[in-house]
């Protein structure tokens, strides 16, 4: 059973609280990215590229038992680490929870500069893209129910 989205948010905040300075925090982010593994080459395609990124970010998604599964990758290590945190946060959650929950942990772990919509690393674009997928799945599920 996947943990509750709010619990995950708290876990991430607690994890970073234990780290003493920016070097440790960034090292932890880099490690998250290293642990993410790489996305299958078949999913590293143009249509999965998230726009607005200086580094490349690919986002692949599927719906399984009413939960949205996200897989992602990046060619830059810090971006990949941030992407890994987003996947950990949102993947396996219901469309409803994804739409209604913002990644407030980003600010609490001192990474808010990366979420600025004007920043060209595109973490904000990625979050937006994840929510768009969730909305699309929600609509699809409602239509499915209406038919049944």
């Amino acid at each position, binding site marked *: 059973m996947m943990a509750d989205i709010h619990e995950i948010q708290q876990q991430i905040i607690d994890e970073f609280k234990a780290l003493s300075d*920016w*070097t440790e925090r*960034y*090292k932890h982010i*880099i490690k998250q990215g290293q642990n993410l593994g790489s996305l299958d080459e078949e999913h590293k395609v143009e249509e999965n590229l998230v726009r607005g990124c*200086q*580094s*490349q970010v690919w986002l692949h998604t599927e719906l399984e038992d009413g939960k949205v599964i996200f897989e992602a990758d990046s*060619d*830059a*290590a*810090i*971006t990949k680490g941030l992407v890994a945190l987003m996947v950990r946060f949102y993947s396996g959650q219901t469309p409803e929870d994804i739409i209604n929950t913002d990644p407030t942990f980003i600010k609490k772990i001192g990474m808010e500069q990366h979420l600025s919509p004007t920043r*060209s*690393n595109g973490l904000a674009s990625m979050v937006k893209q994840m929510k768009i997928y969730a909305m699309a799945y929600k609509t699809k599920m409602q239509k499915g129910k209406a038919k049944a």
Partner: protein
Amino acid sequence: MAEAATKSKVDVDFNRIREQFPVLSQQVKGQSLVYLDNAASSQMPSRVADRIDAYHRNEHANVHRGIHTLSQKATDEYELTREKVQQFINAEHKDEIIYTTGTTDSINLVANSFGNRFIEEGDEILLSEIEHHANIVPWQMIAKRKGANIRVIPVDDNGDIIWDEYVDLLNDNTAIVAVGHVSNALGTVHPVKKMITEAHSRDIPVLLDGAQAVPHAPVDVQDLDVDFYAFSAHKMCGPTGFGILYGKKKYLDEMPPYRGGGDMIDKVSFEETTYNVTPHKFEAGTPPIVAGIGFGETISFLNEIGMENIAQYEQELLEYGTEQLQRIDGIRIIGTAKEKASVLSFVHEDIHATDIGTILDQQGIAIRTGHHCAQPTMRRFNVPATARASLSFYNNKEDINRLTEGIRKAISMFE
């Protein structure tokens, strides 16, 4: 004495000059700022900021049409900049200096106005492989409208243009050669004088994008014999939103206006409008008056230091920076042309440029990462992006030491 050995050969106290830039004495992320993003935009000395402030507080009025004293004074000050620019780049006539909003605007003006008048179907526009997008896209737009073609001068692995290919590309259909004087992404100084002589031997005019050249060394448009020269105030310690197009009078007089509006007209009726003379026919509407006056002050400031001194000092810094960067394992400098301006573009064999930029920012060090608005350049060197440290005369060796320490720290974090 160790200190004497590392002292600059230039007889100007650049550390005193640095003190005139208050922005540089701030703390970023708890450390003193190291600003190495000068090719994107440079900082402004206090006296230019003060001049702008004084204008806003005490001198503002619209220019060129006022009967009243304030307007005439503002006009005099604004037009004084034209004379200062004329002298600064040694143009023959004051009327050859056109005010624009920046290099991009200057190039768009030439592409549209010169293009409308002189570029025809089947003509060729010759660019280099390492141009900034501002010196590519305006030409593509006019080429599309006119049915002309873009041709590209290749560069070698150092970032120098391949001379024989350039000469071969010049032909009877070449309408104009448009190249950067200095590449923003690599720092290459093109052999522009030689290129211009070669183009002129076939009666082909040349435009130079001087955005990265004018801030770093003396430029003499008559000595170069260049036909059009574009640059921006904000890359040479001046205000944003202001730039210059130098053009030879023989072309400017033949070129139609590019934008319509106030100030650029002679007589207007609903049937027909006749236009003002050069340069005013290219300057429609109320101009960026304060930026123009601020830029005049900037030129006085630069003249007092001396562009020769700036060039020599920055070359010393570039040499030092190149040496220091080359000592770091895994770092490769992109752009090793014979002659370079103070740009250090580099990649690490394993670490993405944006990662290096992010970790440097954490240490209060400002550089640029990405494609530098020169995507074809990145493709030529087969890199997705580079990290770029670009130097100004207010930087010093300590800044470069902070940069290299910062890079070493970044590398240690990704191991």
